[in-house]
């Protein structure tokens, strides 16, 4: 009698053991988000902007113009022997702007390219100044390098949210469908095991990983990129906890009926891929058209990412993120309730 474990504890321990003995699972939960953050972090690290390539059609004052453009260091001038050659370079994207002397100066560029519009202003500014233009008001520049406004700062909370979604839905979904497929689930249902214990153990084991997962990603961000955590750590922990709960519930729902891994996989992709794209992981979800915003903002990952960024980057308080958290919780509770209702135990 004394050797008997509490069944919920035994089930939770079983899940944890299963997980840590699965090297692939460990990779996807811990190594993958770090590798992703590392690659993207370096790709978008802080550095001076690349000089914009600008073409000059050979003419009487080519050398003078090229000298003027080389001075500020933000423009990379190249000379083309004829207008046709210049157009060719412009059309293929080798240069953002083509300068032609035709009476005064004639700028050829594509207005929809942001770097071309910048080049137009900078080139004109450089040439006019070199030719003696004086500005009526003196102006100076002071460059800002604030931690918290870089791309990596935007990205890291997104990756945290993405990981909470991935491990919640994959972790719980695959484990349940697998148990159903191999009939281990049926075998357990044939014992006096309480079904609620089985489902709770899935959630509890998730929370153990959650703590490790969030800690690893956050520490990585703080140590490698000095990503700030401006809000309260407690609120951040609460936010990730609710996120994990919500996606755990969605994982249960996705796995509640599926009889094959293929079916489960399809459902998981159906749930996750739209959020990968729409929910502001890699770029702000505000970039999508206004008409789509109500839908996008009501997705659980959008709400979770918004909450994580608000707490980490802007130092917001609970009341400020309560709306986001409510969206996250509603998704979780509804998914969990539906999953319980329709769960296929055999």
């Amino acid at each position, binding site marked *: 009698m004394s*050797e*008997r474990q509490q069944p919920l504890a*035994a089930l939770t321990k*079983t899940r944890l053991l*299963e997980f840590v003995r699965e090297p692939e699972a460990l990779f996807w939960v811990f190594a993958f988000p770090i590798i992703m953050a590392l690659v993207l972090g370096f790709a978008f690290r802080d550095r001076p902007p690349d000089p914009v390539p600008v073409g000059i059609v050979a003419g009487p004052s080519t050398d003078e113009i090229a000298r003027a453009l080389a001075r500020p260091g933000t423009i990379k001038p190249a000379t083309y022997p004829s207008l046709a050659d210049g157009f060719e370079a412009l059309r293929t994207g080798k240069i953002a702007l083509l300068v032609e002397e035709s009476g005064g100066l004639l700028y050829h560029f594509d207005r929809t390219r942001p770097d071309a519009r910048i080049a137009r202003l900078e080139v004109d500014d450089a040439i006019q100044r070199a030719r003696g233009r004086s500005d009526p008001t003196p102006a100076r520049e002071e460059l800002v390098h604030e931690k918290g406004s870089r791309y990596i700062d935007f990205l890291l909370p997104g990756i945290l949210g993405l990981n909470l979604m991935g491990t919640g839905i994959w972790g719980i979904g695959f484990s349940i469908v697998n148990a159903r497929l191999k*009939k281990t689930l*049926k075998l357990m249902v044939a*014992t*006096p095991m309480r079904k609620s214990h089985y489902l709770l153990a899935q959630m509890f084991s998730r929370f153990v990983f959650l703590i490790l997962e969030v800690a690893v990603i956050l520490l990585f961000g703080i140590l490698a990129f000095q990503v700030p955590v401006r809000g309260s750590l407690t609120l951040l922990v609460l936010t990730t906890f609710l996120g994990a709960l919500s996606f755990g519930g969605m994982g249960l729902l996705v796995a509640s009926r599926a009889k094959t891994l293929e079916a489960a996989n399809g459902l998981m992709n159906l749930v996750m891929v739209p959020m990968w794209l729409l929910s502001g992981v890699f770029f702000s979800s505000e970039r999508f058209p206004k008409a789509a915003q109500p839908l996008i903002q009501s997705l659980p990952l959008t709400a979770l990412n918004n909450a994580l960024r608000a707490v980490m980057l802007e130092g917001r308080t609970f009341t400020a993120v309560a709306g986001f958290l409510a969206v996250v919780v509603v998704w979780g509770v509804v998914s969990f309730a539906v999953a319980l209702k329709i769960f296929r135990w*055999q």
Partner: protein
Amino acid sequence: MNATSAAIVCRGLKKHYDDVKAVDGLDLEVRAGECFGLLGPNGAGKTTTIEILEGLTRPDEGEVVILGRRWGSHERELRERIGISLQESRLTEKLTVYETLSLFRSFYTRGRSPEKLMQDLSLEEKRDARVGKLSGGQRQRLAVACALAGDPELLFLDEPTTGLDPQSRLQLWERVAAYKAAGRTVLLTTHYMEEAERLCDRVAVVDHGRIIALGSPADLIAGLHAPHIIEFATDPAVDDGLLARIPGIGDRRQRDGRWLLAAGSLAEAVPALLDELDRGGAKLVSLSTHRATLEDVFLSLTGRELRDE
């Protein structure tokens, strides 16, 4: 026999899957303390029947009483009192034998310790081995050990030795016999007649979802009236007309180019057979005899073989 001394009673069990009548009006009584076998070919409805009795499948019609209780009203109590080993269920491969047993032990309020279970099923040496690394026989013993974790009064075994080598099969039979010797009840399904003959006090022969014969293996075989089987081959082959003239021969059938004749008395039938073959000009290539088995019972009842196709 009344319902209280019966471990299992079911009446008029029916279960249809689409057009297939998996169980088609099945009645059964298993007495407390006996080992009862459901014997039949694959697809006869044995697994559906046992899963209905185990409370895992709901019958379309019919009633089931297990240990005097019904699934609808006493599921938790029944789950505590019975043990189940399913066909083809796989235990989690990443867990060790000990971890698996303590997990299953945790589900029951009372039961046997993992140590005792490992001892009973000769798994002590595999205590810390992962389930994924076990042999087929060891896995099956572990599955039975899990079924015994709650020290059940009634044990259900669905095809317990299918796919096992003869030695593992023998080992498992010993364990089931020991469990029964302690006064417990066993219901098992099998398509191995040898298993049924060795282990079961009574068997029900199941075909097309119905019981077509019921009794002890010895009674069923005795019921054939021809407890011996003569198996022979000749060159050239002989036809049925010739064999029909032999006195004291019951069923006649052919298998793999040989004839199988059921005979009441070998002393009468064998000389008569040899005489007929002589007269017909056929040369005997092989001749052997064996006592009739449950397989012959099934053959004589259905005209079909009870073998793993």
